[in-house]
């Protein structure tokens, strides 16, 4: 479980996240919604500490991943990132073959000593995202030659290959065509049986379709959080009501 307590993030002089308190339950899909610039992506990138690469970032508060504070305890960042997979907005294959893309994380984390095990593992993860059949016979060809939808599924397979506990998805379907988006969306629903998924989305309909929990953010603050049914059907906060009715976006 990931638990955030009183998290404040400043980037240079800007207060980006303000007193964020939120819990992401296990084996469920939590969608983070809110208007552009409200801090959704910053929150997501804090969970795997990719925020560290931003110049002038300061963090206060606690982010507990499985009970360990990843901000103050001197947590091993590379191990944390292995545990928390990321699928970004635009598919981003590494400049290598389809096989090597999936094998890359396994190799750097030294997961297998046996090459045969690695091949089996890569194929298993390509199969999990429905890509194995589609790339049969060209698994050693450059990943950049895949279609955008296939590339995004490859990125998901690459994240799954390092056996994470959590998957972060940053508007993972927004750059895809409707059919590919539906395929990826269905995959997330299937994957929640084994992984805790935290998803930033701009599409309310998508959140409505797949979310178990919803976190609504506005200007760096968490305005409302709770089970999807409750937030969508009976929002407690006036701002949430306005956002859901399209008063602002």
């Amino acid at each position: 479980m990931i638990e955030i307590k009183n998290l404040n993030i400043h980037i240079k002089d800007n207060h980006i996240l303000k007193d964020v308190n939120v819990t992401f339950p296990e084996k469920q899909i939590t969608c983070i919604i809110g208007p552009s610039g409200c801090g959704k992506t910053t929150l997501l990138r804090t969970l795997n500490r990719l925020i560290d690469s931003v110049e002038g970032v300061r963090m206060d508060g606690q982010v507990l991943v499985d009970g360990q504070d990843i901000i103050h305890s001197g947590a091993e960042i590379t191990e944390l990132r292995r545990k928390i997979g990321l699928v970004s907005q635009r598919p981003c294959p590494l400049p290598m073959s389809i096989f090597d893309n999936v094998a890359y994380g396994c190799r750097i984390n030294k997961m297998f000593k046996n090459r045969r095990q690695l091949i089996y593992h890569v194929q298993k993860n390509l199969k999990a995202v429905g890509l194995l059949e589609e790339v049969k016979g060209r698994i050693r060809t450059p990943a950049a030659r895949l279609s955008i939808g296939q590339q995004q599924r490859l990125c998901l397979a690459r994240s799954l290959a390092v056996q994470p506990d959590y998957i972060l998805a940053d508007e993972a379907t927004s750059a895809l065509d409707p059919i590919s988006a539906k395929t990826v969306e269905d995959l997330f629903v299937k994957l929640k049986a084994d992984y805790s998924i935290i998803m930033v989305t701009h599409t309310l309909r998508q959140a409505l379709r797949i979310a178990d929990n919803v976190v609504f953010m506005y200007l760096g603050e968490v305005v409302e959080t709770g089970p999807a049914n409750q937030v969508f059907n009976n929002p407690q906060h006036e701002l949430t009501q306005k956002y859901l009715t399209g008063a602002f976006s």
Partner: protein
Amino acid sequence: MSIARKKRFIETVAKIFMWAAMFIVFGFVISVLWTIFSKGCKAMSWDMITKLPGGGFYIGKEGGFLNAIVGSLYIVGASTVLGLLISIPVVFFLNVYLTKDSKLAYVARMAFDVLFGVPSIVYGAFGFTIMIYFGLRTSLLGGIIVITLLIIPIFIRTMDEATRNFPRDILDASFALGATRWETLKVVVRQIAPGIATATLLSIGRAIGDAASVMFAAGYTDSIPTSLSQPAATLPLAVFFQLSSPIPEVVDRAYAAALVLTIIVFVLSICGRFITNRFSKNKV
């Protein structure tokens, strides 16, 4: 004149200007090659590229300039490897470890720009001073060090330009899998491989053709160096010394040496393009 006619007129003038510029550049390349080939072929023989200079070679007698060919290849090969080993980590540090707004990166880039423009004779003089300080004589090692210093700014600035357009998402994708910055270097190198190949070609072109710096640092000899402490001959100096001779046969041999130099650069360029194409197939 109507607007449409005016646009057509400007278009035609621009096209003529571009064709003329192309013609000048192309004509220049052809005339250089023609001069080297026509004059160099006269003196070119198997002996020229397989034999060392014999007694009286520089007054038109028997022998060849194998010493200069081997010396140039030694110096260029070693300095290219050294240059790459030093430049890749610098480029990586500038682009991955330092942030975009880093003052250190700004100062470093400015310094490399200045070094890029420093004439090679200055590198030669600098190398010479250092060698005197350490009590070294003109040698293959001196040549390698000076040429490495000469090409490092070329390597760094060319690779840096290729790396600055590197998609940051790729770095995040690698970090998000638990990779360290050092492990991510492999990914960066794969992505900028065409840039590295271009930088290598430019550096080799500069290194193999430079006479001024090696004159001070590597010296000249009629034999092939068997250790790093011995002086080494180079093709540009072979051209330089023979071209200033009053004997026509020796002047023709200078063109033959220039021809060999051109062919080496040409072959390396083709190899470089081949390697670039091979490596860039995975580029995202």
